[in-house]
C-alpha cells in the first residue's frame, strides 16, 4: 500500500515537473527576443566549433605580398599589416572569447554557488563572506582585472583567473539572496525539524531552488567576460599576440584606422553580435524565470 502511494506521488511529481518544463519552453519560444538571442549565441558557438571548415587560411600565416588588402573575394574581411587574413583571425578569435566566457562562467558559478549557499545558511559565516564580497565588488570590474593581470602577466589562463575573481562576488550575492528566501520557507524548517543534516538541506533542497538567479547571472557574466577579455587584450594586458583575440585584432587596427578600417569594424561587429545575443538571452531568461521582473514588465 505504502509502495503504491509512493509510486503515485512520484509519478505525479514527475508529471508536474514535465508540465512545468513544457510551459517554460513554450513561454521561452514565445519570447521573440530570447529566441533571437539563442540563435545568435548558437551561431557564434557554431563558428567557434567549425572554425577550420569556415576558412582555409591559417590565422597566424603571414602573406607579406597581401598586406592591408581591403575586403574582397579572396579575403572576405581583408588582411592586416602582416598580410594575415582578418576573416580567419575573427573566426578563430571567437574560440578565445567563448573559451574565456565558458571558463569564467563555470568557475564563478561553482564558487559563487558554494559561497552564496553557505553564506545564506550559516549566519555567522554570512557576515564575513559578505564583507569580503562587498570589498571585492567595490573595485570596478575592469580595473580589478587589469590590476590582477598586471601582477600575473598577460596570458589567456590569467585572464580567466582575473575575471573569475572579479565576477564570483556577483554570483555569490545573487545566489545568497535567493537562498535566504528559500531558507525561511516552511519546508526547510520541516526538514530541519525532522533531523535533516545541514549539508543535505543546503545541497539537496536549497541549491536547486537557487538555480534560476544563477542561470540568469551566468548569461550576463558570459557577456561581460567577452567584453572585458576584449578590453584587456585591446590594452595589451590580455591574450598576447600573435594569438588572435577580438581585442588584440582591434588593437592592431587602432594604429591603422585610416588605411585599414576593416581591421576595426569586423572584430567589433563579432563582439557586438556575441554580447547582444547573450544579453537578449539573459533578458529572456530573466523574464521567464524571475517572477518579480515578469510582474514589473507587465
Amino acid at each position, binding site marked *: 500500500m505504502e509502495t503504491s502511494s509512493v509510486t503515485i506521488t512520484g509519478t505525479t511529481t514527475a508529471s508536474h515537473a514535465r508540465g512545468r518544463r513544457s510551459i517554460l519552453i513554450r513561454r521561452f519560444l514565445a519570447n521573440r527576443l530570447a529566441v533571437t538571442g539563442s540563435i545568435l549565441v548558437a551561431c557564434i558557438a557554431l563558428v567557434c566549433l567549425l572554425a577550420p571548415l569556415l576558412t582555409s587560411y591559417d590565422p597566424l600565416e603571414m602573406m607579406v605580398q597581401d598586406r592591408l588588402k581591403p575586403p574582397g573575394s579572396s579575403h572576405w574581411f581583408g588582411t592586416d599589416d602582416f598580410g594575415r587574413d582578418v576573416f580567419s583571425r575573427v573566426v578563430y578569435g571567437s574560440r578565445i572569447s567563448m573559451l574565456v566566457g565558458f571558463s569564467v562562467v563555470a568557475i564563478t558559478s561553482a564558487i559563487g554557488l558554494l559561497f552564496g549557499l553557505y553564506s545564506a545558511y550559516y549566519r555567522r559565516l554570512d557576515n564575513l563572506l559578505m564583507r569580503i564580497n562587498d570589498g571585492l565588488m567595490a*573595485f*570596478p*570590474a575592469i580595473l580589478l582585472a587589469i590590476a590582477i593581470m598586471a601582477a600575473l*602577466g598577460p596570458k589567456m589562463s590569467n585572464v580567466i583567473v582575473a575575471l573569475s575573481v572579479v565576477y564570483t562576488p556577483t554570483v555569490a550575492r545573487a545566489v545568497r539572496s535567493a537562498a535566504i528566501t528559500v531558507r525561511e520557507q516552511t519546508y526547510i524548517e520541516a526538514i530541519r525539524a525532522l533531523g535533516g543534516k545541514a549539508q543535505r538541506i543546503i545541497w539537496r533542497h536549497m541549491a536547486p531552488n537557487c538555480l534560476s538567479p544563477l542561470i540568469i547571472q551566468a548569461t550576463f557574466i558570459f557577456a561581460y567576460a567577452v567584453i572585458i577579455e576584449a*578590453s584587456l587584450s585591446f590594452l595589451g594586458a590580455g591574450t598576447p599576440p600573435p594569438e588572435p583575440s577580438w581585442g588584440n585584432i582591434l588593437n592592431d587596427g587602432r594604429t591603422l584606422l585610416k588605411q585599414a578600417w576593416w581591421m576595426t569594424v569586423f572584430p567589433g561587429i563579432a563582439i557586438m553580435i556575441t554580447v547582444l545575443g547573450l*544579453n537578449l538571452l539573459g533578458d529572456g531568461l530573466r523574464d521567464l524565470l524571475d517572477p518579480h521582473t515578469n510582474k514589473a514588465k507587465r
Partner: protein
Amino acid sequence: MGKYILKRIVSLLPVLLVVAVVDFIIIHLTPGDPAAVMLGSQATEEELAKLRDQLGLNLPIYSQFGHWILGVLQGNLGWSIFMDMPVTQAIWEHLGPTVSLTLIAEVIAVLFAIPLGVMAANRRGSWMDQSFMMLALLGISLPSFWIGLNLILLFAVQLNWLPAAGYQPLSSGLANHLKYLIMPAVSLGIMQGALIARMTRSSMLEVLNENFIRTAEAKGLKLRVVTYKHALRNAMIPIVTVIGLSFATLIGGAVVTETVFNIPGIGKLIVNSVLRRDYEVIQGAVLLIAAAYVLINLLVDLLYAYIDPRVRYDKS
C-alpha cells in the same frame, strides 16, 4: 538622520579594510620577485636589493601590510620608480582629465537616458518602446572602445570635424575642452545611458501601475504632469542608484577610453603603469578608485534616505 549617517559610515569600515587588503595582496600575486619583474633582466643585484628595500619586500608580509596601510592612512601611496615622484602626486596630476571626462559622459548619459526611458514606459509595447529598448540593448552590448574607434573613423578621419585624439584642459576654453572630450564622452556614456534608460523604463512601469497614478489621471491631470511630477519622482530611487553606481563604472571604463583617445587621465596612467610594471602606481590608483566607489555608494544611500524618508526608518 545623523544617527543613520553614522551607522552607514561605520558599516563601511570593514568594506574599506577588505578593499585595502585585496589591493595589497594583488602586488604579491606576482610570481617570483616583484622587484626583478619591475626592473627587468638587465638590473644589477644592487639595484634589486635597493628596490626590494624601498618596497619593503624583505619584511614579513604582515609587517609589509602594516607599513603600507599606515602610509595610506597618512596619504602616502608609495613612490613611482618610473616617474620618480610620489604616487599621490602622479594621481593628482592625472585626475583632472578623468573627472572632466566622466562628468561629461554622465551628463550625456542622463540627458538622453531619462527622457527615452520615460517615453518608452509611457508608450509601453509600442514600436517606439521596442525600438528604444532595442537601442538600449545594443548600447550595453557595444564595447566603449569600439564605439570610440568608429567615432574617430567617422568624425575625425572621414569628416574631419573633430580631433582624433588628445586633450585640452578647461583653462584653454570650454569650446576647445569639449571639442577634445565630446567623442570620448559619448563613447564612454553610451553604455551607462543604456543602463539608465532600461532602469528608468522598468522603474516607471512599476510606478505607473500604482493607484495614485490612476487617481491623478482620473482627476484629469495632463499626461506630462502625471508622468514627470507624480510618476518619475516616485520612480527616482532605483534610477538614482544606477546613476550613482555608473560613476564608478565610468571611471573603470575611462581606462580604455583614455587609451583610445590618448587622454592623460588616471586610466592612461594605470595602463602605462601596467605596461611598465609600476606596481605602486597601480596599487595606489586602484585603491583610490575603489575607495571613491565605496564613498559614492554611501552618498547614494544617503541621498535616497533624503529623497524617501521611509528608507531611513526601514533601515533603522
